């Protein structure tokens, strides 16, 4: 089974697959620097940074960027505590109640964004809450909290519950048990949860589309631009976003490796 030939084929496949994943992004990024009205890399009409300048002068874009960050921060602030509480709760119960609660908690992950968006819209509209970014936040929290819950729950599996009892036995108050024993153990999961919540929120389109009202977020704004007539400014924006997130991802990864190397 481990013949040379099959190994070569696998390797070839990996290269093709990676090319398939990355080439479109490179094409899109390249088009941001091409001096052509239509975003493309062929034919190459000369190098330009005009599209970045045009982007910078787009006030709506800057505004939608601010909105996106605000929404993402709010989502992090809500979904991390909710997800953590849910994980702690479900970890301490068993039997049928646990299965039911677990099912309810993961259901939003398996629900299409459009459904979450519309149900959120209808419900809050009934309560006379106007559309807007706050509803986008609530809609997003409903499924992002589930991601946090799953991360924290996984981390709780490695938690030795007798530590809490030991702390109580030594006279610690309940809040001290939480602050000094449980939360420090959960920090890695909470951190990962916060990062994932942040990016999921920035990414989100389906829920935001139905709940945003008159406000723009980045994805919605880009969507409307793409529909109304594309220009390479969108590519320029993509280049910036990719650069920022990749740098962020790289920094996180490098730091993780440094920590790992230190503890090893």
């Amino acid at each position: 089974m481990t013949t040379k030939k099959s190994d070569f084929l696998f390797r070839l496949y990996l290269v093709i697959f990676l090319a398939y994943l990355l080439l479109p992004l490179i094409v899109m990024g390249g088009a941001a620097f091409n001096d052509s009205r239509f975003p493309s890399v062929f034919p190459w009409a000369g190098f330009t940074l005009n599209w970045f300048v045009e982007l910078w002068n787009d006030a709506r874009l800057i505004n939608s960027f601010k909105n996106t960050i605000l929404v993402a921060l709010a989502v992090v602030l809500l979904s991390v505590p909710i997800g953590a509480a849910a994980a702690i709760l479900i970890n301490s119960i068993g039997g049928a109640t646990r299965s039911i609660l677990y099912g309810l908690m993961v259901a939003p992950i398996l629900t299409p964004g459009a459904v979450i968006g519309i149900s959120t819209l209808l419900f809050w509209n009934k309560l006379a809450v106007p559309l807007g970014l706050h509803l986008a936040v609530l809609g997003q929290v409903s499924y992002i909290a589930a991601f946090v819950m799953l991360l924290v729950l996984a981390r709780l599996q490695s938690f030795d519950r007798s530590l809490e009892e030991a702390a109580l036995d030594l006279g610690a108050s309940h809040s001290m048990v939480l602050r000094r024993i449980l939360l420090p153990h959960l920090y890695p999961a909470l951190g990962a949860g916060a990062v994932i919540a942040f990016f999921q929120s920035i990414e989100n389109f389906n829920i935001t589309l139905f709940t945003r009202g008159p406000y723009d977020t980045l994805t919605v704004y880009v969507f409307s631009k793409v529909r109304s007539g594309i220009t390479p400014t969108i590519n320029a924006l993509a280049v910036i976003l990719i650069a920022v997130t990749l740098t962020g991802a790289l920094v996180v990864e490098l730091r993780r490796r440094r920590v790992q190397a230190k503890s090893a």
Partner: protein
Amino acid sequence: MSASVELQDVCADFGSFRAVDNVSLSIEAGEFFSFLGPSGCGKTTILRMVSGFISPTAGTISIGGKDMRNQRPNQRPTALIFQNLALFPLMPIWENIAFGLEARGVDKKTRRKRAEELLALVDLPNAADKTVAQLSGGQKQRVAIARALAVEPSVMLLDEPLSALDLKLRQHMRAELRAIQKRTNVTFIYITHDQGEALAMSDRVAVMSHGKLQQVAPPREIYNQPATGFVAAFVGESNIFSGTLASRSGDRGEFQTESGVFKGRLGPDIGDGAKLYVRPEHVKLDAAAINGNTIPVEVTDIAFEGNFISIQTIDATGRTVVSETRNDGTASVPDRGTKLFASFDADKAFILADEAKNQPVAAA
């Protein structure tokens, strides 16, 4: 500094399973008291009730004369050393030790100072800033003890604290624990399934089986005068003869077995199912028969154990009778196949209620 602990008719149920069955005993202030029993007999459950993590299904527990019914674990004057130690892995050693003080709002400088004093007490200077992962098993053990001592408990509860250590270290820590107990004069309640540990360290030992107390007595009495068949079989070795009680007079009885009729001391509460127990070191082997409690045997095997010699024999019915003699360097050892007479003193033989009758009891 130390307090007495009183258990009265304490029961603990998990569902329909009774883990602790009607236990009553009182532990004196400053005593080193051990619970001894096989795995699963309810020892940990008792400790968890005393420290307040579970409430008894029935009965009362009082510490220092005070009923503990509504006292939460963090309000009781007890400190529990967990079976797995439960040291806080994310804190340096000194914060581990000072955790109880932190909970009491002691300022950081005092905490640090106290932690270092306690580290000196348990013979671990220079460990203050290490992490838990950097310590060896024995060192972790001592940190756990220091952490418990830091809150100046009146009662220390220790759940098999030495079970994870190797033999040498275990023996060293036995002495150390005993010394710390004498120095601090705190009441120690100690759990173990290692009889050597219980007998060597304790002022008194409670032997348990299937959630029930079998005997509560000083170590010597546990060994020399077992109250039940379970104790006789579990603590030390015994030759066990099945049979029926033929007659009784006072605290003596005659016991009919297949191998013959033996005289022995009667234990408490003997019903139909009783057995006769006699320790190997009380079985003597002679060339000539002596009157009473004597049976002819044949030597089948000899085991040299260092400080003593164990001689295995079988009697006419084929049952094994073991005799042990101290090895003082001059003891003569019979050859295999030698025909001898085994005898034992009626004072050293016990007719006790059968352990098979102490089966687990389902809760009502």
